[in-house]
């Protein structure tokens, strides 16, 4: 039996009478990288804040690292590293000063040495005395991650840690996350990037406050029951508009010079495609594999928008 790092049930939170997270349950095994996905305003940040005691859920219960999220937030805070979506270290402190502050608050034995080590690990050696506020967006994110892992937490809650980070740095970032997971640290990470979702052991998709799918990337794709055709050829814009109107086609999305045509009802979709093939021979059709993005967009368009 695997150890569980996060186990919450029925979390609900509303602001000013508007439900933002509804009856959300999550189970994250220890040492796993758990991706948290969903459109803007779907309640990812709110959920993460409830996990680390920054927000009190209206209802629901659960544990984080074995501590009750409702009553033991002091214990949780000691062992969780939370990286906020918006940079929230001190802009008027240098990198070194920020890290030393964090080290002292967490009671790390030798704060100066710990900060020095973290600076090296982050590759920030040349900038140790630069003010955090003067860093570029990507470097701020690296600093924030460094501050999070400095006190060696058992659980990392990362809220869009790679927003605005260049591809190379993003890759390094994920290598670091996988290294940490291999050491037994659990990571819950929210993201809008599909490639990052695929790097997670497991993902959860939430829209309008409701959990719509979870599992490994492949499981989520399989669960959706979506099948996809890939089309290439001339005047794809016109073809897309045509296909959209047909029953059986749930989604048409352009990918570069190709069009992904997807539907949940495989039979109906195949019928539409067969008909289209017959009608004009100019296009090239192949059976495709639905991507995570296809699945998410479908999930989102089906989810009822409680603001509408």
């Amino acid at each position: 039996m695997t150890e569980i790092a996060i186990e919450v049930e029925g979390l609900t939170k509303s602001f000013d009478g508007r439900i933002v997270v509804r009856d959300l349950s999550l189970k994250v095994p220890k040492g796993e990288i758990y991706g948290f996905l969903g459109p803007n305003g779907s309640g990812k940040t709110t959920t993460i804040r409830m996990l680390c005691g920054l927000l009190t859920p209206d209802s629901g219960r659960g544990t984080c690292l074995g501590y009750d999220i409702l009553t033991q937030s002091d214990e949780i805070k000691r062992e969780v590293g939370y990286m906020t979506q918006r940079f929230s270290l001190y802009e008027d402190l240098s990198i070194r000063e920020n890290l030393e502050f964090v080290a002292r608050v967490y009671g790390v034995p030798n704060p100066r040495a710990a900060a020095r080590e973290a600076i090296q690990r982050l590759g920030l050696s040349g900038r140790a005395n630069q003010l955090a506020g003067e860093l570029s967006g990507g470097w701020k994110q690296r600093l924030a991650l460094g501050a999070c892992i400095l006190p060696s937490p058992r659980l990392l809650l990362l809220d869009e840690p790679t927003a605005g980070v260049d591809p190379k740095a993003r890759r390094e970032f994920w290598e670091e996350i996988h290294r940490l997971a291999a050491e037994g640290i659990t990571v819950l990470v929210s993201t809008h990037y599909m490639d990052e979702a695929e790097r997670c052991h497991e993902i959860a998709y939430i829209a309008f406050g409701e959990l719509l799918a979870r599992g490994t990337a492949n499981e989520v794709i399989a669960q959706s029951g979506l099948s996809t055709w890939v089309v290439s050829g001339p005047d794809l814009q016109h073809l897309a508009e045509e296909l959209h109107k047909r029953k059986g086609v749930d989604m048409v999305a352009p990918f570069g010079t190709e069009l992904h045509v997807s539907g949940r009802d495989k039979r109906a979709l195949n019928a539409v495609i067969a008909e289209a093939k017959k009608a004009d021979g100019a296009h090239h059709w192949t059976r495709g594999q639905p991507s995570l993005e296809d699945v998410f967009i479908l999930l989102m368009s089906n989810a009822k928008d409680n603001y509408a």
Partner: protein
Amino acid sequence: MSLATYNGAGLRRDPGFLRRMWAMVVKEFVQMRRDRMTFATMIMVPVLQLVLFGYAINTDPKHMPTAVLTRDDGPLTRAVLTAMKNTDYFDFRQQVHDPDELDRLIRSGTVQFAIEIPASFERDVRRGDRPSILVIADATDPVATGTAIAAVQGVIDTALRRELRGPDAAVAATPAPFQITLQRRYNPEGITQYNIVPGLLGVVLTMTMMMFTALAVTREIERGTMESLLSMPIKPVEIMIGKIAPFVLIGLVQMTIILLAAHYLFGVPILGSVPLLITLSTLFAASNLAVGYTFSTVAQNQLQAVQMTFFFFLPNFLLSGFAFPFRGMPQWAQWIGEVLPLTHFIRIVRGIALKGNGFADMQVDVLALFIFMIVAMGLALLRFRRTLD
């Protein structure tokens, strides 16, 4: 973007000075309307100022607490006391029986005046021996006692003349049947600086200390750093003390500068113990820091926090006895004054510097400051939100 925007460069011509300025005006009004608290202060500050200046302040204080030591209780003595009372300047609060008690009351500031009528006063007057009535004034604040002292002489004169009729009329006819020995204690020359400069220590500390911490929590919230801070294993009381402590040190520097200037530039005497003065000033600084910190847990943004400190500073400045005589204010204003920390500190600092008071003379004021600090800190901890709800 609407298509119209692209229709031609003509639509995007320079809007001109007035329109751009107007855009700014509209934006500012919208933001102002969002901030209810600022709106309220804009109305409240003038009202508060009108009330305080208009009703509370009086530079010719009457009904000042007075202690009396009468070693003679003949009709003449009573006539003298009645006449004094009729001036409205003196309010006889205490009848004491020995001079030490009289000294103690003056020193602790319980009374503003002390009057001693000598033994066999009546007999000596009738004999024409011109006995002496002792009037002791606490002249720390020369403004408070000035007019009362001026009124004393004439009033006693008329009282005696009325009483001494018939066989003693001859005595009354002499220019002065008695003498008044006036002791202006603590500031015999009535130098205003002696009163103002020590008080200034309190005013400066109030203003700066409160301002420092009033931004402490609001700044973290406004800059977004509160979210990180709250997710760390640090307790509200640790945050509070950590934020207050550095400014106590700043306060110490300010104190040193003011005290040195008071002594060497303005020649203000410091009769009491300097270490005691520094210790109690530190306590005072800490209570103001605590008040500021409390404001910062209540205010929603830095502007509000600054407004709150100003709101608090105003009555401190006007009702503490710093700028205007405390005894000159109506009773309600004195009650408000009693719950302000500056009032008690002004008494402490004037007491130590000018009267040479020791700890024992100021226990009430010290206790008041202490309670004030504890209450402010308690409120701050209650108000401090540990979550972002």
